[in-house]
């Protein structure tokens, strides 16, 4: 052991000590990354009134957080545009909040088709929020929800209410009560893994090692995250328990880890390389081999499991070029899905298992969507190089990384037409490998 390595070991020991002495600070008020979002064409005008303080929120902090997150999420949905709060006639604190207690004309006159009102009650750390959605032209209450929790839960209350508004207005629950995981170099030169709410709130740094960390993947219950790290200077998969923030290495002795994914029930599909061939294996949550999924001398990587747990998609170059295949998790034959283009990779199954998004290399990459039977391939992105598609749990959106604005950054687009809604990250450093969780609330 050289002097430098001995010094490293001492430094490492000191750092561990430092971590024990200075535990992670408790997260402060919900902050969202500063992002410009242009409202989509045909977006419906919605007014989001401040929450009426029924006691305990005299500083209006709870209201401000709830309104800020709700406005961000409704705008990101592309279904709504926020009517400028500066134009609101009614004072939320001096008017009623339910039907018959306020004047719809105050809202129709400023062009709002939808209106959110509500109340907040705070007793120490116990917060209750009641939120209501109104149809302004029809002067009727569409929906109401009650939430309670502590101050850290206010953002999540807003995200759930955003999802409920989309359910009422579009017939499908919104995707905002869900997490994004991604790789970012924002902390310096190294690729580290972060999670946040889809809207960027609640940023949490999962890895902190000066090496390379890649390919975050959630399980369906959003209790675990799988990723690949070189932190021991050899690539190994790690399974993080997001609840107690611990992790275990997944090392089944099948070769060097290349990547992986989690099945809906928390099993692992790992890609492991041995003697130059990379194959996919189904493993238990503890990392024990269940069965081989591929067994050939080619490259088989990039698994994505569809939400019903029946099938998975992956990339294989068994035909000579990397192409997308599907296969049953029970084993059996692989079916080639893509034939157009000579470099198709990074498949992502849509939540209804009917479509697969993937990246196709031309000059740079573009994101395509194809039916899972191989028909109907459609190019979604046009500008810049675009990679790593990840579907929203409701199937209406795709997150992806793009260099369209310069450095690589995570963006949100509509799956149906490829309309790019907004970047999801600030673009501090380069960001890539987006993973999109299932709904946090089941």
């Amino acid at each position, binding site marked *: 052991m050289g002097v430098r390595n001995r010094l490293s070991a001492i430094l490492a020991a000191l750092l561990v000590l430092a971590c024990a002495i200075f535990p992670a600070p408790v997260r402060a008020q919900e902050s969202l990354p500063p992002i410009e979002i242009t409202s989509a064409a045909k977006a419906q005008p919605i007014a989001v009134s401040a929450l009426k303080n029924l006691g305990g929120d005299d500083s209006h902090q709870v209201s401000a957080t709830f309104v800020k997150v709700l406005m961000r999420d409704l705008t990101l949905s592309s279904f709504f545009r926020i009517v400028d709060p500066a134009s609101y006639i009614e004072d939320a604190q001096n008017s009623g909040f339910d039907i018959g207690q306020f004047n719809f004309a105050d809202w129709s006159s400023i062009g709002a088709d939808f209106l959110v009102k509500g109340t907040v009650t705070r007793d120490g750390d116990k917060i209750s929020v009641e939120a209501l959605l109104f149809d302004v032209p029809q002067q009727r209450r569409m929906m109401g929800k009650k939430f309670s929790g502590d101050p850290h*839960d206010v953002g999540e209350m807003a995200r*759930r209410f955003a999802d409920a508004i989309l359910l009422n207005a579009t017939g499908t629950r919104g995707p905002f009560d869900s997490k994004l995981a991604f790789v970012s170099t924002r902390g310096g030169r190294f690729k580290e893994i972060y999670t946040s709410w889809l809207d960027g709130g609640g940023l949490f740094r999962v890895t902190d090692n000066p*090496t390379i960390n890649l390919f975050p993947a959630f399980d369906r219950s959003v209790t675990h995250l799988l990723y690949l790290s070189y932190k021991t200077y050899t690539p190994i998969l790690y399974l993080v328990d997001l*609840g107690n923030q611990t992790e275990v290495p997944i090392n089944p002795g099948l070769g060097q880890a290349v*990547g992986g994914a989690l099945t809906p029930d928390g099993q692992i599909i790992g890609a492991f390389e041995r003697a*130059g061939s990379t194959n996919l294996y189904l493993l238990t949550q503890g990392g024990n081999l269940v069965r081989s999924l591929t067994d050939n001398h080619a490259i088989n990587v990039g698994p994505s499991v569809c939400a019903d747990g029946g099938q998975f998609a992956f*990339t294989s170059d068994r035909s000579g070029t990397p192409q997308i295949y599907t296969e049953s998790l029970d084993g059996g034959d692989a079916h080639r899905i893509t034939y157009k283009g000579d*470099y198709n990779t990074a498949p992502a199954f849509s939540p209804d298992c009917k479509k697969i998004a993937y990246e196709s290399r031309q000059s740079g990459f573009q994101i395509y969507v194809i039916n899972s039977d191989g028909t109907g391939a459609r190019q979604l992105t046009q500008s810049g190089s675009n990679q790593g598609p990840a579907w929203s749990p409701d199937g209406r959106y795709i997150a992806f990384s793009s260099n369209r604005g310069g450095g690589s950054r995570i963006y949100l687009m509509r799956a149906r037409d490829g309309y790019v809604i907004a970047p999801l990250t600030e673009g501090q450093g380069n960001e890539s490998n987006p993973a999109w969780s299932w709904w946090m*609330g089941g």
Partner: protein
Amino acid sequence: MSRIQRGRGGWVVEAGGFARTLAIAMVIAGLALAGCSSKKNANEGSQLNPSPNGMGEGGLNGTGGPQYANGSLGGNGAGGPLSDIHFDLNEATIQPQDNSVLKANADWLTAHPNTRVQIEGHCDDRGSEEYNIALGAKRAQAAKDYLTTLGIDGGRMSTISYGKELPLCTDETEDCWAQNRRDHFAVAQ
């Protein structure tokens, strides 16, 4: 109808309608507490974000090139007693012009029998990340197989792929891409 779900810092209780009784809330609070305590007991595995251990099994130090923290990640193309070899786009086949390079590397290893070598496979930045890690592994294995046929003991050689993560250069030019599609041979005593 009520549902409880774990929030970021506690539990969020969501009621489907407006009618909710204190009794239900208390039952929910009890469930929440039970959930919290059982979670703590299930604690296993190592805590996230300890500092990286100083020296892993694969901690062979390269020379020259970009230096990473304590210098234990590879990615170095220049310097060292052994020379890099290069590959065509999306290929892992040893090229004819590299036969003499590998022969020279094998000669050096034969002359220095107490050394070990880690063969690092690298790719240019035009491929997909995960596919490139597998491709880099294939490139490293190709060199290991070749050196084995030249008489080098496989037990002295290990392979690792860095995919496109540790480029030598970042220009969007044919010349730079060609430099990055390489095997680097990192030697340790």
